[in-house]
């Protein structure tokens, strides 16, 4: 009886450990997924950049800055690829924003 209870306890501990590891793995996967979704949503607007307003462009640049901090924590290859991609879209938004601000200034 005692041996049976001990086995049951072991199974419970193993199941709990399994659940915790699954949670950690899923959280990491979801974390990676969420920054990729945010990256896509931020950088996909490059095609419409000329039609965006100054506040919209400023917001996109802020999102790029926040993303940069997250991507910097990724492993080497992901960091290299995505920081370059992010830089390209951020620089493009800054470039469009500058030109819009210059256009608004009286000559």
């Amino acid at each position, binding site marked *: 009886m005692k041996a049976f209870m001990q086995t049951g306890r072991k199974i419970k501990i193993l199941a709990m450990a399994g659940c915790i590891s699954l949670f950690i793995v899923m959280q990491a996967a979801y974390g990676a997924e969420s920054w990729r979704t945010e990256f896509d949503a931020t950088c996909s*607007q490059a095609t*419409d950049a000329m039609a965006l307003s100054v506040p919209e462009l400023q917001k996109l640049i802020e999102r790029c800055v926040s993303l940069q901090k997250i991507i910097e924590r990724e492993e080497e*290859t992901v960091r290299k*690829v995505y920081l370059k991609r992010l830089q390209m879209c951020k620089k493009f938004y800054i470039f469009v924003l500058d030109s819009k601000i210059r256009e608004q200034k009286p000559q």
Partner: protein
Amino acid sequence: MRKIFFVVPILLVVAGIAWAQGGMKKHKPLPYEFGTVTINNYSQQAGMPPVVFDHWVHRQYYTCRLCHVDVGFGMIAGSTKIRSADNMKGYYCGTCHNGEMVHNKKRIFESCAKEYSREEFKRCVKCHTFEKRAAKEDEFYRFSEKMPSERFGNRINWEAAEEKGLIKPVDYLEGVSSKKSHLKVNPDFAIKTKVEGMPDIIFSHKKHTIWNGCELCHPDIFIGVKKGTSKYSMVDIFDGRYCGVCHEKVAFPQTDCQRCHTKPPQG
């Protein structure tokens, strides 16, 4: 007379230095070599020959933007510093060369491996090339025969090839590219030439954005969005800046004046 013995050797030395510093004629690439890039950041250290990348093979299938924006390849040879580990993780060349992706009903070969057999080494030398590649040359000429011809560069008019539907470059890769809305193209504009009698340039945003998108050129290559902000001359372009980043290396070369200088002078 004595002066001759003194002056002639000096002249010979000066001429020798001048010749060594660029007096030699630049090698003009053959059509199949045009747009070829040699990548050798880490290959030789790892005991492999450098990678010889052919733009003509890839540009028939993919837009410039897809590789240089979405995949993340730099615009200067060797600037990306691709490692075999990056490829094996499914980035850079490994984005497509992963042994799984299928294009035109053909499986794209895997790019790199930690260990390889003698048989598998045949796959390595598809990119890490030792010598002149006769098979590649034949493949190029077989391909170019079917394409609209051009006078310079690859002797292929890529733009016409796309217009005729002979090539259909893909601009989106699932899991790699961000889904973008349809690109609103800015109108074409004229760039006034400085040389009298030389036709002005008609710059087509449409032609360029279709393959490059926006962020590939702005602001890294062309800093100004307003016409005339980026001031450059043909010297800069021949130096590989501005239009010269692509035109001469991969896109049609600058010797093909009439491709850009198309607007006849007014009056």
